[in-house]
């Protein structure tokens, strides 16, 4: 049974589909890469799967159950990292991680420093985030990946502002996560050099259908 399955799925804006319907099966151990031009709806797709918007057509399943009815399980077993990292500038790197863990009902005081060390921020634990560079802030956000053991990682442009060395590191983390039986769903415009076979999902604009409907509505 796949972890996450989409059937004839498309996000909607103003009741029109953003892209041609896609079918997607994300199994344990797979790294799915969403591809498509700017504005095709990659971010919308990730936000919809994560549960931030409810405007879509088609069906979503989590471990075989309709996703709407498995939201709590899904929330416990997935992690979403969007364009905005959700970091508070006034708080330190460690405090940001602790807050995020406490949202998930976990006291992470024991593991926060280890997670920061893993993303190369040892020594920055108590620096307020406004003193960190954009790349370092991104790394604080990425430290969440190591804070809790979560099967599905949903990453929207995770390589933004990350240096070359960091890109290679992040790629190795994705592979390691997939090797452990996790799954990754990500978008990026970066050329990836990942050793595992990727599951490429191409999104295409749904021009014809949407234009027809648009004319009909008139």
């Amino acid at each position: 049974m796949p972890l996450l399955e989409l059937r004839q799925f498309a996000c909607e804006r103003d009741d029109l589909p953003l892209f041609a319907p896609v079918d997607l099966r994300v199994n344990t151990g797979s790294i799915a890469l969403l591809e498509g031009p700017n504005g095709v709806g990659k971010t919308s797709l990730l936000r919809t799967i994560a549960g931030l918007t409810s405007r879509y057509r088609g069906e979503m399943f989590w471990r075989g159950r309709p996703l709407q009815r498995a939201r709590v399980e899904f929330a416990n077993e997935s992690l979403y990292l969007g364009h905005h990292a959700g970091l508070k500038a006034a708080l330190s790197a460690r405090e940001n991680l602790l807050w995020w863990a406490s949202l998930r009902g976990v006291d992470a005081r024991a593991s926060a420093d280890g997670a920061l060390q893993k993303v190369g921020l040892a020594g920055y634990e108590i620096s307020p985030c406004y003193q960190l560079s954009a790349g370092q802030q991104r790394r604080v956000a990425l430290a969440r990946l190591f804070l809790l053991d979560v099967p599905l990682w949903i990453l929207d442009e995770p390589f933004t502002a990350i240096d070359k060395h960091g890109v290679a590191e992040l790629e190795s983390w994705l592979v390691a996560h997939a090797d452990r039986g996790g799954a990754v769903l990500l978008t990026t415009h970066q050329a990836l050099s990942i050793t595992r076979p990727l599951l490429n999902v191409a999104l295409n604009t749904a021009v014809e259908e949407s234009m027809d409907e648009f004319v009909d509505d008139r």
Partner: protein
Amino acid sequence: MTAERELSAFGVIAALIRRDVQIALRRRAEMANPLLFFLMVCTLFPLGIGPEPTRLAALAPGVIWVVALLACLLASDGLFRSDYDDGSLEQMLLSPASLYLLALAKSIAHWLITGLPLVVMSPLMAVLLQLPSAAMPTLALSLLLGTAVLSLIGAIGAALTVGLRRGGLLIALIVLPLYIPVLIFGASAVQAAADGFSSAGQLAVLGALLALAMPLAPLAVAGGLRVSVDN
């Protein structure tokens, strides 16, 4: 992964409140804005209408309450703004914890940051506006109950308008009608105490409003946040 300790629902709420208070204490200027507003307007009143004690005392309950209400309104606009802008709100919506509890925690934290300091400052305002000292405990108590209701109601308006670029005036339109009962009973409690009557009835109504707002407002806040982020 290293050993993790599960937090109870109270633990989650406490952690969220602690974080918001921590942020407010590190950005004191922002926190001070509504308080300065409260202080300035109450200072200007005696200058504007003259220092005659009887006239000031007659106006004092209404003035203090109106200014406290406007200070709360001013502060509530920013309740979810920074969380929305930096993506924290998305993480809150996606957390397995119930959004109801998170909304309640945000409202309580907001009250600790804005409402409670107003209550603490109120005796000073009472002196400035020549309010009889017998009415001071009632003033503090009515503000204690009333600002908590105002924070909860303000959170509804903030949740509904956080997705809009310019929600400033809209939030006033949504929230002010709901503020009015609090204002009426709050000011009248202080007035009654100043005139030497019992204010137990008005305070009981304020308590009832709080008992109503506490469980119900977070429901509306949670719904409003979902709508605001879904765009």
